[in-house]
């Protein structure tokens, strides 16, 4: 019984090590009667039996236990034995591809060597603190046991490493599976290798960008991100026990080339460019960015803080009073109240001024601040002088110095009459 509905296109990635090259998809048509009970592994086995015996793929247990059949199924990592055809969108072809970030040996078979090298780096074995003759008792509701949860279920299928975009770009990054294994042992109170394990794992944890790709694809519903975050929080509470780890071989600086004649005092000379060590490049780049941004920020803040004091004070016209307030031939002291605004700063100013009116339209305005030390000067009608109370300075009615320490006469202020109001220009 072969109908249009049950016929599915299966595209399988083929790579022949004898031919080499990039590899390409081969398309097979397969009649899948009941997608709900047909796994991708069934599909592969059937194609191998019925159509193309040269297809290579790994499998062993067929029941989601061994982690051999990890592959990319329609753009998502998963176990072929656990993914049913009905899990895939009905309109899509079935597309099978080997895992990312592993060398492809043939077709869907990848070299898991790099994975297990990194796995071993995380010390994935249990070393007890002390020998127990009796079974060690851990209660099911023990908080630490609850924390570990089902994270021990990892079957090392490599799906998380394939989905993680960071593993391939950071040589020293152990990857979610290895760190998850480290986490299950670190959270175990019987573990004797706590410090070395934490030191190694923490170095790797810095490379996690909280992307959750490993969590999305894990066939065992383990969250590698959760394990990594747990290790990092564990490290915060054990800061004193941690010692910095030596640089990973991939990150170590190559031996420095002998110094050439320094021709230009530039930081990016040829010697640096020929030494593309990742760590030194990052250090230089970080330093440059740091210097540039601090200069930028310091510049902006400095200008904002200093500029108003450097700028000349803004002058303004302030009304002193109507013409009626000033008797002709008299001298009055007026208190000016105004706001001085400068840049972002504004201040309320109360400054007395001295106004002498000689005729209807002739005025003389003095600042009441003594030129000596700035005390307030007042008109003394008895002696017909301006007198400063502080150090005995005296000025005549034109503001010239008569006695005392003032170095010059009283400062005169510009004035004008507008609509019967006398205005004085002040700072």
């Amino acid at each position, binding site marked *: 019984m072969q109908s249009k509905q049950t016929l599915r296109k299966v595209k399988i*990635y083929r*790579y022949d*090590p*004898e031919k*080499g090259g*990039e*590899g*390409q*998809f081969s398309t097979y048509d397969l009649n899948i009667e009941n997608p709900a009970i047909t796994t991708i592994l069934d599909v592969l086995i059937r194609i191998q039996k019925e159509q193309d015996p040269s297809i290579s793929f790994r499998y062993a247990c067929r029941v989601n236990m061994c982690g051999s059949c990890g592959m*990319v199924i*329609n*753009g*998502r990592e998963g176990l072929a034995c656990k993914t049913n055809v009905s899990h895939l969108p009905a309109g*899509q072809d079935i*597309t099978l*591809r*080997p*895992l*990312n*970030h*592993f*060398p*492809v*040996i043939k077709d869907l078979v*990848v*070299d898991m*060597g790099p994975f*297990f*090298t990194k796995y*071993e780096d995380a010390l994935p074995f249990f070393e007890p603190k002390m020998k127990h003759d009796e079974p060690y008792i851990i209660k099911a509701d023990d908080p630490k046991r609850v924390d570990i949860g089902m994270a021990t279920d990892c079957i090392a299928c490599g799906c998380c490493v394939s*989905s993680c*975009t960071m593993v*391939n770009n950071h040589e020293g990054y152990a990857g979610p599976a290895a760190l998850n294994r480290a986490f299950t042992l670190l959270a175990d109170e019987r573990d004797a290798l706590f410090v070395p394990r934490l030191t190694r794992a923490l170095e790797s944890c810095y490379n996690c*960008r*909280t*992307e*959750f*790709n490993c*969590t*999305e694809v894990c066939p065992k519903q383990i*969250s590698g*991100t*959760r394990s990594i*975050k747990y290790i*990092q*929080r564990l490290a915060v509470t054990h800061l004193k026990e941690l010692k910095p780890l030596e640089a990973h071989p991939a990150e170590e600086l190559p031996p420095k080339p002998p110094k050439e004649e320094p021709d230009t005092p530039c930081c990016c000379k040829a010697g640096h460019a020929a030494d593309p060590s990742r760590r030194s490049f990052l250090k230089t780049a970080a330093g440059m960015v740091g210097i540039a941004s601090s200069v930028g920020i310091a510049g*902006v803040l400095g200008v904002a803080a200093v500029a108003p004091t450097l700028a000349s004070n803004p002058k303004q016209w302030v009304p002193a009073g109507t013409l009626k307030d000033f008797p002709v031939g008299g001298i009055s002291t007026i208190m000016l109240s105004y706001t001085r605004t400068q840049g972002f700063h504004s201040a309320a100013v109360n400054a007395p001024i001295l106004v002498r009116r000689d005729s209807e339209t002739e005025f003389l305005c003095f600042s009441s601040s003594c030129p000596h030390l700035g005390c307030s000067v007042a008109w003394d009608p008895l002696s017909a002088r301006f007198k400063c109370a502080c150090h005995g300075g005296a000025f005549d009615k034109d503001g010239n110095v008569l006695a005392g320490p003032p170095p010059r006469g009283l400062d005169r202020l510009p004035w004008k009459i507008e609509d019967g109001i006398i205005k004085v220009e002040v700072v």
Partner: protein
Amino acid sequence: MKTPEMESREPLQWGEIDPYRRGRAHVGMWAWLLQRISAVFILLFLGLHLAYTYKPFLQFMLFLTLIFHAALGIRVILLDCNLVNIKYQRYLIPWVLGIGLAIMAVVWFIIY
């Protein structure tokens, strides 16, 4: 452990020859990428903002990129410090972005 010498293809990369890959929702990864990109745009708009201070459009764009960057940064902080259960990480992204944008809208309409 050294693997024996054999002819093997270089590792396939994320999304390489993978027709259905980009249709999948790896939200956490896009959140991370969006935060990185918004950081670059903050630098750009901050520079423009210093040059042309009172331009509402520039202020709006700077504010928007800042909100995106801050919201996604808060997401990472919440997850790092275990303040949100990690099983809600998918929902956390629209929530932090939504709250950030709501705060932005309120502040923007108070200012203007």
